[in-house]
Every structure is written in C-alpha cells, then in structure tokens.
C-alpha cells in the first residue's frame, strides 16, 4: 500500500449513467505523484467520461474523486485551478496570436505570464506572432500542451494526444509528456495506441464496458499474460516498418 501523500488522484467507485445505461460502472483507482497513468480501452468503454468527471466537466452520479485530498464534486473551481486539460481536438479561436492565446489562458487562471518563455519551451518561439491556424498538427498539439500548463497544474489530463500525428510528431510529443512528468506533474492520458502506452505509461488501467478490467505496469501485464500460457507466433525481426520510416525520414520534426 502506498503512503497517502504519494497519491495525487484517488477515484472511488465512480459512476455515470446516460439514460439508464451505465457509462462508468463503479471504477476505483489511484494515480501517484509524478507518474504517467494511461487509461486504455475500446471506443465507448467510458475513458472520456471518466476523465470528464474528474475534470469537473460532467456531474458525478456516484462515488467520488479527490485530487490532492480535495473533493472534485464539491470544489470544482479549486480543482480547475489545479489541473491542466488537453482535449481530444485542440480548438483555439482564429486570428489570435500564440502569445495572445497564452496570455488569455493564463488570465483565465488570474495570472500574468511571459508567453515567449512558454513558447520557447516547446520550440514555438519563432511562431510567437503567428496565428494558431497556421500551425501544423504536431505544432498545434505542442501549443495545446503548453497552453494547458501555463498555471503549473498538479495533474495534467490528455485525451488521445497523438491521434492523427505523423511518427516524428508522436515521438516528439512523447518526449514532451515525459518532460512534463519529470517536472513533477502527474499525467493521465487515454490512448488507442498500445505502443504508445507501452513506451510512455508507468501504469495503465484497461477499461471495458465502464469497468476497469486490469490495472498494472505494462511490463507486469505482459508477464501475467505470458504466465497464463499465451503464445504469439514468433517472429524474430530486428526492425519493423516504423523503424524503416524513421530511418528514411529522420527523427527530426518536420
């Protein structure tokens, strides 16, 4: 059992129903400080609903969620100032400079910041005066991440952060997320990519039909499966197609 103050997020018996159908069916889990926690599952498993309840965007029907000991349901505004949220599709108003958007996001938390410093962190310093609509998909994701971190939150939520990105941008984003974790911010993300979960997540929860069916480190989950006698057709190949792609087009961002 982990010590209480090592836990940043505690979810107990969380429930949500839509029209009598249970979208989230009494799940419980804990996220430790400074870890990357992944929630995996097929579409409709309840991943996004779970995140939205913890993010105060959806009402909690039953059970509870606390962040750093503060109850989500009863202190939504306090919770919002402690979390950063990267939605599935980052939308920003057009004809607004990146610096102005950073300034606005900081202002939403009542803070004044130096936007340039934040943009430099994600290599967007030279785009400071550009409008967000001129950014590429990967640049937009990086910008979205830095915009969610202007107020130094304790927990950072990402909903399918790398969907639709090219391999270079994905790798770059993984690195970025690891950097965020190394700054002591706990990261909770959902993803459909198993390779992403395996590389990035310290622990993962696998959800199906509103319930958590398994929760452990990726390594332990794989070991457990093998112990049960699972065998895959052995292919001893030293590289896969993605390695070829990266070899041919380079690791650098385009």
């Amino acid at each position, binding site marked *: 059992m982990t010590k209480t103050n090592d836990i940043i997020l505690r979810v107990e018996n969380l429930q949500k129903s839509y029209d009598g159908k249970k979208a989230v069916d009494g799940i419980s889990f804990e996220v430790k400080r400074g870890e990357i926690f992944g929630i995996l599952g097929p579409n409709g498993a309840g991943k996004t609903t779970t995140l939205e309840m913890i993010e105060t965007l959806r009402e909690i029907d039953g059970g509870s969620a606390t962040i750093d000991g503060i109850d989500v349901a009863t202190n939504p505004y306090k919770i919002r100032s402690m979390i950063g*949220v990267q939605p599935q*599709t980052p939308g920003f108003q057009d004809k607004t400079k990146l610096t102005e958007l950073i300034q606005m996001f900081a202002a939403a*938390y*009542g803070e004044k910041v130096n936007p340039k410093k934040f943009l430099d962190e994600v290599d967007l310093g030279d785009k400071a005066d550009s409008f967000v609509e001129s950014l590429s998909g990967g640049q937009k994701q990086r910008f979205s991440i830095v915009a969610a971190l202007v107020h130094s939150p304790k927990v950072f939520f990402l909903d399918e952060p790398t969907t639709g990105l090219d391999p270079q941008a994905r790798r770059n984003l993984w690195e970025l997320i690891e950097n965020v974790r190394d700054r002591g911010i706990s990261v909770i993300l959902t993803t459909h990519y198993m390779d992403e979960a395996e590389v990035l997540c310290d622990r993962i929860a696998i959800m199906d039909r509103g319930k958590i069916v398994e929760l452990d480190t990726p390594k332990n989950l794989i070991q457990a499966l093998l112990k049960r006698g699972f065998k895959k057709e052995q292919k001893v190949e030293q590289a896969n197609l993605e390695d070829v792609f990266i070899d041919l087009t380079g690791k650098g961002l385009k």
Partner: protein
Amino acid sequence: MTLQQKLYTVWAFFTVNLKRLFRDKLALFFTFLFPLIFLFVFGGLNSGNNSVSFNVAIINESHAPFAKQFVKQLDKQKSLKVNKNITTFAAANEKMSRGELDATIELPESFGQSELFFRGPDTNFSYSGPAGQAIVHYTQNNQSAAQTLTTVLDAELQGINAKLVHSDKPFSVISKQNNQRSLSAFDYTFTGLLGFSILGAGIFGPVNIFPELKKMGILRRLHTTPLRVWQYFLSVMFGSAVSGLMSLGVMFVVAMLVFHLKVVGNYFQLGLFLAFGITMILGIGLAIGGWAKNERQAAPLANIVVFPMMFLSGTFFPRFLMPHWLQGITAYLPLSPVIDGARLIATEGKTLLDIGSQLGIIAAWMVIVYLIAFRVFRWE
C-alpha cells in the same frame, strides 16, 4: 483568486478579442460597412428636400412664345418634376395609369395667343395681350395631387396676371418659416437605423459566434479553467459596447456629413445611453447563443426574437405611424426605448433625466435577459 485577478481576466479577454475583431475582415464589414450601406439606401430615400414634388408631363400644343416661356418657368418650379420624354397624351395616359406620373398639364393651342382680349361688360377694365387656360389631367387615384397641382399652377398664373394687369388686392397670404426646429423624416430614419445596427450586432453577433466556439471546443476548453460565466460575459459586454459605439459613431459622422443630421443633444449622455442599450440587446444574443448547442438551434430562435423588433420597434418606419393601441404595446419591446431614447437625446436635445421611462424599460429588460442568459448558458 482575488477580485483584482478576476477583473484582470475580464480585461485580458476583452483586449485580445478586440484586437481580434480588427483582424477579421468579415466582422469589420458587418460592424462598420453594413450599417452604412443601409444608411445610404434609406437615407437616400428619405432625404433630398422635404417639400412635396409632383411628377408631371407637359403637353404644349400652343405655338405662342408665351407658352414656351411658361413651360420654361414651370420647369424651374421646385415642386414639379417635369418628364420631358412624354409629348403625347397616349404616352402620358399610360404613365399615369401606372402611377409613374401624378398628372398631365395641357396647354391648348389657344394658350398664350395674344389676339385675345377681354372686356368685361360691367367693368371699364380692358386688356389686350396673351391669355389662355391650362388644363390639368389626372386619374382617379390622383385627385389630391391634381388639386394641389392646380393650386400651384393657379399661383403661378396669378403671378403672371399681376405683371400683365395691374391691380390692387386687399387680401393676400404669404408663408413664413419660423426658426423652431422640427423633426425631419431623416431623424426618424436615422435613429431607426441605429436601432437596426444595434439589433444586428447585439443579437446576430453572439448567435453566430457562440455555436462556432462550441463546435470548435473553444468554450469547452475554457470550461476546464476556473473562468466564471460572469467574467466571460463581462468581457463580451465590454467588447460589444466598444465596437458598437465605434460603429454607431461612424454612422453619426456619415449622417452628419452626408445627410446633414443635426445632433443637438449631449454626446457624452448619448454615448452612455447607447452603451446601455447595446448591452441590454447583447443580453438577448448571449441568451440565445449561449443556450444553443449549434447553429440549427440558434438561427430560428434568433429570427423569432428579432423580426417583431425589426418591424415594430421603429427601425424601418417610425412607431407614430402605427395605430394608437399598437404604439402602446410596441413601446415595451426591448428595442423601442433604445430607438426612442436615442432620438430624444440626439435630435431633440433631451437629457438622461428626461427619458426616465425609456431607461426604466431598458433596465427591466436588462434584468430579465441577463437572468435568462446566465441560467441557460452552456459551455458546449
């Protein structure tokens, strides 16, 4: 968060969004140019001179030099618009039947022939020189126009008579303009167009923008921050008041330069009053746009709310033209006191203290629409 921090949030959103407005060509068009187009169209219809004028054709069948002279003189008359393309009765009748001509003036062949003379049997008055009788032809629907026209021609001929035959008239009448200013049709048109502009920016602005912001997930993202609805609304209110006043200011300047609008009221009070009106009308837009999940919900509701005000609040025609009972009801539509108040201050020189009833109705609507707007607002 301290109150100061919360107000900084409002300020930051207000300034960034105002800068954004000036980068958005479409928004600029609808904010500044669109109202001006209406101003030129409706102002053009209503301005010119206020005097009545008649469209007439003159058919001159006389060859006398006097008749020619007389036609020239009529042409100079301000109250007559002589259509010179019409030279036959057939053409004139056709135009009259279509309502494009008010009347036709016929100068018969004998008009202005100087061999005529007149000697009354019971007077010792005698005259020899040009004489004759003009005839005004008109159709059923143009009786009053024809009567007025006959009077105009009669006066014209009296003037000529007086030159030809000296006589002393014991009674006469002249008209004299006093210095008191009265409202012109344009004063009503202009304040109506101000109202139309406020209606467009205040309601269709948010109704178009909010569903778009929701579709792109922008409001949803703001919802994950501690931003409060009142902070967001306040920043939009300031933005709308500033851009609205700039837009109305441009309309005032153009109206004064091009259409000779005379503003007699106090500019500061006028600005304050208009900002108050804009903010109230904006509340209606915030309620509709904030409630609607998408354009399909927003557009029909906005039209239902806007159309009654568009036609009954005095935007395109003044309310005093309505039947009395309808005036009484329409006075309570949200836009009516805004238009009336603007006219009372701008063109009649009233102060805020004089227009208490207008301010009261606006304030009451302000409370109602913002209560609704806060209650129904949705971030997504």
